[in-house]
């Protein structure tokens, strides 16, 4: 063994203080529905967590692998429709099986799409995500017999949440759905963080930094880009399963390019390449959307203005704000 044992790494592990803080935050969030009975806000926070998971999965792609997907919401949509269709047509009570089928199906769709997309990079890759996303949107929109077309998929049953044979709740209950979402998103965040700081994550970052150099150190760039893509799409499919369970409904608008741009905004508002930043970004985005839409139906205009200000004055997102305060404290 030569040299110092420490590893100069740009990923810092969590300090004990931060870890305790996160555990406290998690417990506080888990207790929230028991002390706060407002079903509307509980459902709103559930939606924020679901979109947070979607934005986080897009961050795996954009912030860590350096690939831009304009319509990552397409894979949330596929997951949601499949879980909904399974519950309607196959078994209205098999929650976990439905989720498994939805996530696996999302992966099966994402695999050939990714296989084609990773042959390109940069803008071409981004355009292909748009092309495929629009195809999926149109299929869902026009296939009235299966998806309900414009009307959306309605009458999705609310199965019980079974754990080891015990029924611990029902997805139709906002508080139960909130807790289910909280647990799934927390587990997904921990697993993804772990994967990102693994040797595999280091490969993704190398590709983001310099694709050509990555190939010239012996990395099969296409293969690892495909792995990154699959990870991002499977996480998006998971968010889709939660989405349909939470709302009991999904329409094609959720899979539109407009909604896709929203997810991208969440990631940028929160801060790229941090995983937790995009979850905060989803919170900011959905809260603003909800708040303004109570005042005017043209909420997109005002949301646009808010986003313009945030981008101009907080170009690195919410995460950058933290660094800004750190600098202030030092000076």
């Amino acid at each position: 063994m030569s040299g110092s044992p420490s590893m100069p790494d740009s990923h810092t592990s969590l300090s004990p203080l931060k870890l305790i803080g996160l555990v406290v935050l998690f417990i506080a969030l888990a207790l929230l529905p028991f002390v706060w009975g407002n079903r509307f806000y509980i459902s709103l926070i559930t939606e924020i967590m679901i979109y947070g998971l979607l934005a986080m999965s897009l961050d795996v792609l954009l912030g860590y692998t350096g690939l831009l997907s304009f319509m990552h919401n397409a894979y949330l949509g596929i997951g949601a429709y499949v879980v909904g269709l399974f519950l309607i047509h196959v078994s209205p009570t098999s929650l976990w099986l439905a989720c498994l089928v939805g996530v696996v199906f999302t992966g099966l769709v994402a695999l050939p799409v990714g296989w084609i997309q990773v042959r390109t990079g940069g803008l071409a890759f981004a355009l292909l995500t748009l092309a495929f996303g629009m195809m999926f949107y149109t299929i869902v929109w026009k296939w009235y017999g299966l998806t309900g077309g414009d009307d959306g998929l309605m009458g999705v049953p609310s199965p019980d949440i079974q754990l080891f044979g015990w029924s611990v709740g029902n997805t139709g209950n906002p508080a139960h759905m909130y807790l289910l979402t909280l647990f799934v998103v927390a587990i997904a965040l921990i697993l993804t963080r772990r994967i990102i700081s693994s040797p595999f994550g280091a490969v993704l970052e190398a590709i983001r930094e310099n694709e050509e150099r990555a190939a010239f150190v012996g990395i099969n760039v296409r293969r690892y880009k495909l792995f990154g893509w699959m990870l991002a799409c499977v996480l998006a499919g998971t968010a889709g399963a939660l989405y349909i369970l939470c709302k009991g409904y999904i329409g094609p608008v959720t899979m539109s390019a407009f909604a896709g741009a929203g997810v991208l905004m969440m990631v940028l508002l929160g801060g790229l390449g941090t995983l937790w930043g995009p979850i905060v970004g989803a919170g900011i985005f959905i809260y603003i959307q909800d708040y303004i839409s109570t005042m005017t139906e043209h909420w997109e205009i005002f949301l646009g203005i808010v986003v313009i200000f945030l981008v101009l004055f907080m170009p690195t997102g919410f995460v950058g704000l933290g660094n800004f305060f750190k600098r202030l404290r030092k000076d």
Partner: protein
Amino acid sequence: MNAFLCTDNLCRHFGGVMATNRLCIEFEKTGLRSIIGPNGAGKTTFINIITGRIPASSGKVHFQGAEITNKPTHELVKLGICRTFQITSIFNNLTVFENVRIAKQANSGGSLRIFSTKKSLKKVACDTWVILERLGLKDLAGLPAKNMSYGDQRILEVAIALAGDPEILFLDEPTAGMSPAETKHISDLIKGLSKEISIVLVEHDMDMVMRISDKITVLHYGSIIAEGAPEEIRTNQLVREAYLGKDT
């Protein structure tokens, strides 16, 4: 075909321009070979083909008895064919340590361990320190690569290439834009390496080329016009004409 690495009538044209014109060059298992020639002679194109950056139009490349023409880059690296670029190509936002570590990891496996920590690949970390120490980058290990001086970045790129455990290493103008002291440092390093592995150097600094090369190949308009020891090349009439133009 007994040479360590050799090209057989290798061609590459861009439109009507023959950038590489039926080149047959043999490289030895160790030693320092320089490839020189005026601007546009096709030096970089030649090594781009061998290292898999661009495909050949025709012709073959053989390495240790096997044909490797137009193989994907990452496979060539696994065989031990590594390179640096004329324009510095490093991982800007990673630290110096991570830059070398990822190259080492790609070469020694473990990249699919999605639930391990990077620390768990102990041998990779160890080997990384050895390379950083050898190239004098140890003190900079924690620095983001983009914050290094230009000269240090060039050395980092050599470190990245070395982390691939090359059998043959192509260096495309490693000293371009370096100070005399940095040039001295890197040329000593290259000379030292050439005792262990095959080094192919594309370079414009004639003093350095003449001083450290074992053998020199001179290209002009994509073809070889001379090949031999430095002193032969220095006195070669064709080479003088290629660089200075014909006496009238």
